[in-house]
């Protein structure tokens, strides 16, 4: 047993957390055991330490018993370290004279043998008590925060977050990869369950972004590099050439009319390839910014992206004195400084090629949901008329729910919006074509305001609902009625037999999944991804828009599938979190930085190890020096110093050795 240290009087508190800890760990026994350890002045167990009376108890003990250090054994420090540090401080001690021991997430919740779990709790408590004795008072590090914000992704999430911040007076950079903002929502005709027109509610917000003096909108751009830390990020944005000078283009589109291609003949991305566009084009009528762009892959003035200057350039003629077209435009790199970042990069639809049994790509009249959205859209390629790829009008339409979702072979999760948008499409397709519509579903998931009512409405409208996962879509006719049709083969699990339903058109309700480049975006902003690949929130309930990197927030479908109302709510939350940081004016940083002791031998081995170039060599003293402002507190230099001359606050050798000896000590338990 170590000798008691002079002047160290530790208060030890073990929390029952209701039954969460107490059911698996004998808390009174842990408290009784801790009371026998050196330096422990008081040891108590309590039902809920994080409650006000629990914190009061600690404060009172500090004052009445003259404690010098506090240890709390309860949940994870990632959850409540702050709470108890504050209580320690309120009791009159330095908040860093505190240590937290995790006996819930790391003990009671993961073990099944009460005796062993209690022993583990005692060992962890012993480690915390030994460690805390070495804790010294420390000061929070204060750094100023840059008030500007970067929003990445201009879907409804990014748009809403940018507008919220801008109207609160913050300067916002909105970076969107595509030529226009709007994201997926811009492609919809109507939105469930209210069936209000998507363009009518989205377009005003898009124009507000364009005209807001506080928003710098960079479309057709991508973030290529992020450096720095909360409050002080340096971000490099690549602006791709659109061969049109944004500031000079007025969006009159005369260049498009006068293009040497008299007819649009290239697949139009915005219409999911269902329509055609010219090499010089604007993605869609409400596109924001209202600036045309040239596709160098197909423009005659280029050959596969390389400028040849061989076209007559009728577009340049049409643009005349405005001189907005610039074939020599190059990509540009812009560097900006921001204090906080909101990532709102959205989702990508599931790739239907992964379920070949549904015939996409084989049968022309099988559509994805997004294609169907464009087909019923008044401003879509057919102006809202439901005409099939073979020119026919459908009499019967099948909508297959959960394509790619809720399936071990593809994506396991429920995509949350497919049931609702399938029903929306059923309503719209029926309205636009008069066809019979069959929905094939596993369960109807309609949890939301007015959602179940929408399902009722569809039932009343005479849309058919058949419960069962579709086996295949085939053109193999078994009866004369099936001739020339697409046949849905499905086990109707309510009727209890296998059915074959002939239709003219099939819509695949594809699920939502993370972007294929989510991993590189995640790295760019130092975030984590969940197992499915969506960006990981700091806490699933209590910090849903925060990430593990301070100052980086997430909003919308990049965090997981959700509908527009939830996306907007989350975007507002992310904006508020960013504002809370900015308006405080500074950031308190953990004082866990490293410093060099006088006995540094000057070997310089730590210098190249620091990823932040925080360590320099002072030739006058022949010793290394750490710039505290640059140090992020990883401790890599400390772990590698051959002479043990570097100290890391809060994770110093003595403290860690104390913990190691504590968990392994041979003291009676």
């Amino acid at each position: 047993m170590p000798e008691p240290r002079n002047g160290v009087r530790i208060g030890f508190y073990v929390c029952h957390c209701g039954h969460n800890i107490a059911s698996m760990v004998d808390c009174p026994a842990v408290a009784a055991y801790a009371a026998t350890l050196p330096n422990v002045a008081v040891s108590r167990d309590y039902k809920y330490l994080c409650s006000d009376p629990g914190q009061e108890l600690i404060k009172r003990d500090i004052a009445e018993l003259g404690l010098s250090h506090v240890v709390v054994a309860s949940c994870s420090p990632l959850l409540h370290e702050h709470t108890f540090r504050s209580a320690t401080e309120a009791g009159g001690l330095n908040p860093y004279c505190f240590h937290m021991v995790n006996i819930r997430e790391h003990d009671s919740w993961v073990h099944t043998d009460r005796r062993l779990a209690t022993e583990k709790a005692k060992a962890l408590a012993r480690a915390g008590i030994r460690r805390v004795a070495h804790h010294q008072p420390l000061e929070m590090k204060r750094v100023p925060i840059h008030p500007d914000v970067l929003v990445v992704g201009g879907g409804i999430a990014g748009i809403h977050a940018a507008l919220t911040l801008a109207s609160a007076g913050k300067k916002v950079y909105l970076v969107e990869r595509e030529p226009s903002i709007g994201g997926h929502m811009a492609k919809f005709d109507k939105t469930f369950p209210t069936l209000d027109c998507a363009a009518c509610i989205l377009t005003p917000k898009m124009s507000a972004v364009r005209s807001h003096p506080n928003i710098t909108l960079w479309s057709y751009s991508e973030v290529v590099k992020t450096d720095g830390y909360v409050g002080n990020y340096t971000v490099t944005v690549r602006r791709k050439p659109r061969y049109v000078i944004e500031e000079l283009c007025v969006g009159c589109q005369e260049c498009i009319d006068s293009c040497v291609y008299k007819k649009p003949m290239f697949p139009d991305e915005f219409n999911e390839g269902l329509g055609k566009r010219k090499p010089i084009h604007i993605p869609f009528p409400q596109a924001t910014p209202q600036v045309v762009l040239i596709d160098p892959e197909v423009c005659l003035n280029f050959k596969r992206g390389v400028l040849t200057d061989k076209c007559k350039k009728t577009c340049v003629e049409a643009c005349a004195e405005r001189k907005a077209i610039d074939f020599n435009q190059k990509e540009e790199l812009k560097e900006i400084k921001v204090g906080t970042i909101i990532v709102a990069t959205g989702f990508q639809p599931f790739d239907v090629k992964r379920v070949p049994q549904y015939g996409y790509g084989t049968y022309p009249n099988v559509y994805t949901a997004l294609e169907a959205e464009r087909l019923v859209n008044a401003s879509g390629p057919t102006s809202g008329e439901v005409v099939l790829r073979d020119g026919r009008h459908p009499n019967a339409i099948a909508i297959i729910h959960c394509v790619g979702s809720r399936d071990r072979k593809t994506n396991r999760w429920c995509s949350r919006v497919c049931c609702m948008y399938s029903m929306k499409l059923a309503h719209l397709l029926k309205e636009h074509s008069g066809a019979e519509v069959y929905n094939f579903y596993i369960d109807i998931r309609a949890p939301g305001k007015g959602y179940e009512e929408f399902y009722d409405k569809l039932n009343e409208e005479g849309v058919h609902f058949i419960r069962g996962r579709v086996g295949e879509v085939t053109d193999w006719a078994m009866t004369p009625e099936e001739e020339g049709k697409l046949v849905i083969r499905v086990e109707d699990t309510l009727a209890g037999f296998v059915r074959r339903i002939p239709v003219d058109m099939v819509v695949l309700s594809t699920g939502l999944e993370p972007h294929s480049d989510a991993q590189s975006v995640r790295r760019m902003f130092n975030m984590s991804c969940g197992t499915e690949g969506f960006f990981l929130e700091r806490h699933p309930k209590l910090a849903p828009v925060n990430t593990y990197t301070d100052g980086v927030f997430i909003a919308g479908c990049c965090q997981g599938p959700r509908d527009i109302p939830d996306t907007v709510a989350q975007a507002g939350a992310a904006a508020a979190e960013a504002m809370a940081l900015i308006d405080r004016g500074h950031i308190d940083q953990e004082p866990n930085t490293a410093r060099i002791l006088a006995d540094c031998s000057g070997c310089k081995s730590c210098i190249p190890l620091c990823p932040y170039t925080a360590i320099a060599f002072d030739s006058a003293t022949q010793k290394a020096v750490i710039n505290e402002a640059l140090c992020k507190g990883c401790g890599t230099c400390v772990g590698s110093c051959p002479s043990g001359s570097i100290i890391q606050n809060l994770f110093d050798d003595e403290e860690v050795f104390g913990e190691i000896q504590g968990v392994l000590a041979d003291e009676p338990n």
Partner: protein
Amino acid sequence: MNPTDKAAAAGTGTPPAAEWTPRIVAFFCNWCTYTAADLAGVSRLKYSPNVRVIRLMCSGRVDPQFILDALSKGADGVLIGGCHPGDCHYVEGNYKMLRRFRLLRRMLSDMGIEPERVRLEWISAAEGDKVKLVINEMSAQLSALGPLNLPGKAKGWDAELTAEREAVHA
């Protein structure tokens, strides 16, 4: 009383084989592996209770001395958990750890310590199930290997040295 502690307290060094379970000290980085262990808890996954986790900010902070100290104080194995390559919160602390780890393992094998006793794993914040898997696997491997008993061995080495020294002086 922990059976190992009991044996050690009784000064026998080697505890009775039937009661013996391995002791694992784990060093987890704050951002990935510690969070993953929290996730394992929140998900109520169940794993072997003979592991004691020590939180560090980054796996790069793991000083080889921590590992040696743990082994010399009676640990039967040491587990180090960090973020996946490319994912370290501090850019490359995990690579620095990897370098040290490789060197250390060579040294440990020279000392007659089986390589399975010291393990480095990359576990991301989302991989709660991997925490469970690795701990259970390691626990099983160490049970099969039996106690390391480095403190006992060290006593033996000390005795040998003293004997030799005396022989020289004699």
